[in-house]
């Protein structure tokens, strides 16, 4: 039975009786009208049970030992306590550490990969005349995530995609986007020239723009021997003071187109040979004139087919490589081999670590808050039920 919890003014008569009780217990005299109450109070106090000497000694000893187990039971106590406390503490710490690692991996892994490296290849169908934009045949492209700014050393490890070329005529091309500090634009451009020259390539077109400010731009249209394309991409991806933003490798199978051009050339040559024989046996002026006109057309066709074949051979033998360099405000890493680590990189890494740590804390809070709320609710319900059962036990006694 739980009575009123709020404090209310007590009845004066009750207060007087309570004062009389307290006065009696303190040994002070009370008014005669409270004599009965005082007598009962004294008699009740006299009924106070006394502690037995054996129990007094026993509990004194327990308290003196600070409730430690008796010496005879010492070997059992600590072991059970270890299992019940340290074991669960260690298990909890291990689970927390695993959760932390998983959270870090999830956060660190999820925050990368804005720019991409992509590769695309297309095969021209038979008879496709144009060597420019691929048409008709199936085209596939794929992309995979790559870090936002790939350090030069790291990027050079990425192999250049090489389509199978066994007996096939394949035209390859590639595009590389780099980022460099504005002040290093010249250095990077010169390195591009050096790489292409060393590999026997050709700089077909180049533009290097420097403003003296934070802006800057360079563009190169290059042609390199196809056999050296992989090496060229590898070296260009590893230029000092430059970082790879994205790279694209493309390939186009022109075997059918090449074969058609070869057949057309052979047909034209055979036609010219036949016409030349007919010309040798021609009698009339009209016949000679007609044959000479046909021979002229056949030779024009031969020249055209030969040019087509030459162009296709050049496309197969030399790959087109487009390099674009854009200035970026953040300084690029230092020269290769120096470790690439400076104050700026350290600050960047520190910021990243702090971001990840904040993310982990946020996720932990998101997970733990509902659990803590449930635990608090369970604790409150449990304590309320326990208190109510205790009161019921008192009423039922």
């Amino acid at each position, binding site marked *: 039975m739980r009575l009123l919890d709020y404090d209310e003014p007590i009845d004066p008569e009750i207060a007087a009786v309570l004062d009389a009780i307290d006065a009696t217990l303190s040994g002070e005299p009370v008014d005669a009208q409270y004599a009965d109450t005082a007598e009962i109070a004294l008699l009740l106090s006299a*009924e106070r049970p006394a502690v037995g000497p054996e129990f007094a000694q026993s509990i004194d000893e327990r308290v003196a030992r600070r409730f430690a187990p008796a010496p005879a039971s010492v070997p059992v106590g600590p072991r059970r306590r270890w299992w019940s406390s340290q074991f669960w503490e260690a298990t909890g710490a291990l689970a927390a550490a695993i959760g932390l690692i998983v959270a870090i991996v999830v956060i660190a892994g999820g925050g990368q990969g804005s720019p991409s490296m992509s590769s695309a290849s297309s095969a021209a169908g038979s008879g496709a005349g144009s060597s420019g934009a691929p048409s008709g045949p199936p085209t596939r492209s794929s992309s995979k995530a790559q870090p936002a700014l790939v350090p030069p050393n790291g990027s050079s490890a990425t192999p250049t995609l090489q389509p199978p070329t066994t007996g096939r005529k394949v035209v390859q091309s590639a595009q590389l986007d780099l980022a460099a500090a504005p002040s290093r634009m010249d250095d990077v451009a010169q390195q591009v020239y050096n790489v292409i020259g060393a590999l026997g390539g050709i700089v077909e077109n180049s533009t290097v723009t420097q403003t003296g400010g934070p802006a800057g731009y360079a563009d190169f249209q290059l042609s390199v021997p196809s056999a050296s394309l992989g090496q060229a991409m590898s070296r260009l991806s590893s230029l000092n003071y430059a970082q790879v933003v994205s790279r694209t490798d493309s390939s186009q199978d022109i075997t059918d187109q090449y074969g058609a051009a070869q057949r057309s050339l052979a047909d034209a040559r055979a036609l010219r040979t036949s016409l030349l024989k007919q010309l040798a046996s021609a009698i009339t002026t009209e016949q000679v004139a007609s044959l000479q006109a046909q021979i002229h057309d056949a030779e024009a066709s031969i020249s055209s087919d030969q040019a087509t074949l030459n162009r296709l051979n050049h496309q197969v033998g030399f790959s087109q490589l487009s390099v674009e360099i854009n200035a970026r405000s953040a300084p690029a890493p230092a020269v290769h081999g120096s470790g690439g680590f400076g104050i700026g990189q350290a600050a960047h890494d520190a910021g990243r670590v702090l971001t990840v740590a904040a993310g982990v804390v946020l996720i932990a809070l998101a997970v733990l808050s509902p659990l803590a709320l449930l635990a608090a609710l369970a604790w409150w319900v449990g304590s309320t039920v326990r208190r109510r059962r205790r009161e019921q036990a008192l009423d039922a006694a």
Partner: protein
Amino acid sequence: MDHALVRSEGVSETLTASPSASGTTSWARFEALYRSSRDDVYAYAFTLLRDAAAAEDVTALAFERAYRRRRTFDSRRGEERGWLFGIARNAALDELRRRRRVAALAGEPSRAADASEAVSEDDEGEVALRRTAVQTALAMLPAREREIVALKFHAGLSNAELARVLGVSESNAGTLLYRTMEKLRKACNATA
């Protein structure tokens, strides 16, 4: 009323053995609390449970729990004695619950019967009759009211401490005590 001086004076002096360096303050406070309250806690438990063995168990359990939780005591919420008797009360009520689960105790020791033997030897006349009447009336009280008597007259709690242990306001505790005393007074007068 200074309970520390009036009550529980027979606690063994072996407790003055020096505690370890760590937790000296909390241990000293607990030791002082134990010294001042051991007999009071026992008296309360015995009056409520009417069983010496159970009262001893509850007393020991209450002090062990208080020792384990001594760092959780918050002086802003009341005196240490009130906190200790709250623990003792929970232990005693748990004991009552355990009794309910097991079985109703048969042949509980009757304080009135025990006392009557002593009265016959030590006291005489009117006083002995009045004492017997009070014992009988106390034995007839329900557990809840017997608990109030135990806390007030056997454990020596003030009305404020009584209120904190029972979880009611001080005026409510005073009213409960008044009603219990009135019931005892009427029972004693009826017996006389």
